[in-house]
């Protein structure tokens, strides 16, 4: 009688090693910026997680208030004359930016969960 080529113990070993491989692959594939909202200001650049809520950002003219929601962000108020940043509305997709140039504050969606695969996800906006 030929010995059985594959036993439950073999299956356990295979499963364990496959899981280890998948975990390693997941770690590699997960590289890149965390999903959230990048806020650029005179103080530097930082990424705020989605859902962070109200964030106050200091600029040369005063405080720009950013609301970071569960899937995007918008400038609620800013001490600039034209209010272009406020009029931009909520930015949800990578590539979209709400910028207050006079107060030197910009808000941009970044990261893997932020609609990176859809056609609305762009690398830049011509405007």
């Amino acid at each position: 009688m030929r010995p059985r080529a594959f036993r439950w113990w073999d299956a356990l070993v295979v499963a364990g090693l496959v899981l280890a491989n998948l975990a390693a692959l997941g770690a590699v594939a997960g590289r890149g910026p965390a999903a959230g909202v990048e806020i650029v200001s005179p103080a530097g650049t930082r990424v705020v997680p989605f859902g962070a809520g109200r964030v106050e950002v200091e600029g040369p003219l005063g405080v720009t208030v950013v609301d970071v929601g569960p899937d995007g962000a918008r400038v609620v108020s800013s001490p600039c004359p034209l209010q272009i940043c406020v009029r931009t509305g909520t930015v949800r997709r990578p590539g979209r930016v709400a910028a207050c140039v006079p107060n030197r504050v910009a808000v941009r969606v970044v990261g893997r969960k932020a609609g990176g695969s859809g056609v609305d996800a762009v690398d830049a906006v011509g405007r």
Partner: protein
Amino acid sequence: MSRIVRWTLPLLALGLVVAYAAARRPAKPVTETRFLMGTLVTVTVSGMPEADARAAASAAFDAMEAVDREMARRPGTPLWELNRSGGGPVGTATREVLGAALAWARRTRGAFDPTVGRLLDLWDIPSGPHPPPPPDEVDAALAHVGWGRVRLGPAGADLGGTEVDLGGIAKGYAIDRAAEALRARGARGFIVNAGGDLYVAGSRGDRPWRIGIQHPRGPQEFLRVVSPMEGALVTSGDYERSYEWQGERIHHILDPRTGYPARGCRSVTVWAPTAVDADALATAAFVLGPEDGLALLERQPGVEGLLVGSDGAVVETPGFSRVAPGVRRR
């Protein structure tokens, strides 16, 4: 134990293959952002190790800053001094840009005109909303506009009583210098984005670059999403730097012939091999309106454009979809 050994070797091999495949994936693009030239500038570099990409982006910003230091119209810059004294010697870069500006002024019959400094000061759009200036003041400022009065020679420039503002072309020139700096440091796939005026080169690595062209009346919408050929994609729109006053849109693109904001277009997007040309042409086509603007763009070899008229109608040069094929049309 022998089972572990038996399965470990093949699965280790599989793991190595997976790791190799993952390592071969193009690195994510590196993005750096700064406020420069009165706008938000973003440089995105793909296909390079992160440290090299950041060094290349830094060189690009340095190149743009150098242009700004020379050609911004603010106290202390050489252009400011040139305007203050009504003429004088000009540096190499300013000579190049002023020369290009005057050439475009001639070729567009004044639809693009770098001598609108007094008009821009009068309208003072960035500090709005405020009432538009009275007609007699517009006429007075208009008397100081006229590209034909500027003399540019080996000894320098004589502004002929005008005041030069290179804002409509220096940003394009700076974008070109940034692209040059990136290439010099080995970058092949990159985007230089100065407030929505772009130079696009190569690809993102895993796919072509994807550019959204802003819809002029829908802040959340794109007119098109395109993957442009290598070159500049510059847009002039009446929705940027603008405000409403008593139901009227007051914006920064002034018609140098009338002294008032141009009314024929909502936006004009121009593709050209260089940003300096695309910048001047986008402004000129916007001022001329959809019909004459389209004709102007069609006359320029190697230039394509997409224009949105004041009624919302979209027209484009025959080759625009060739140089900027759509990813999706809305």
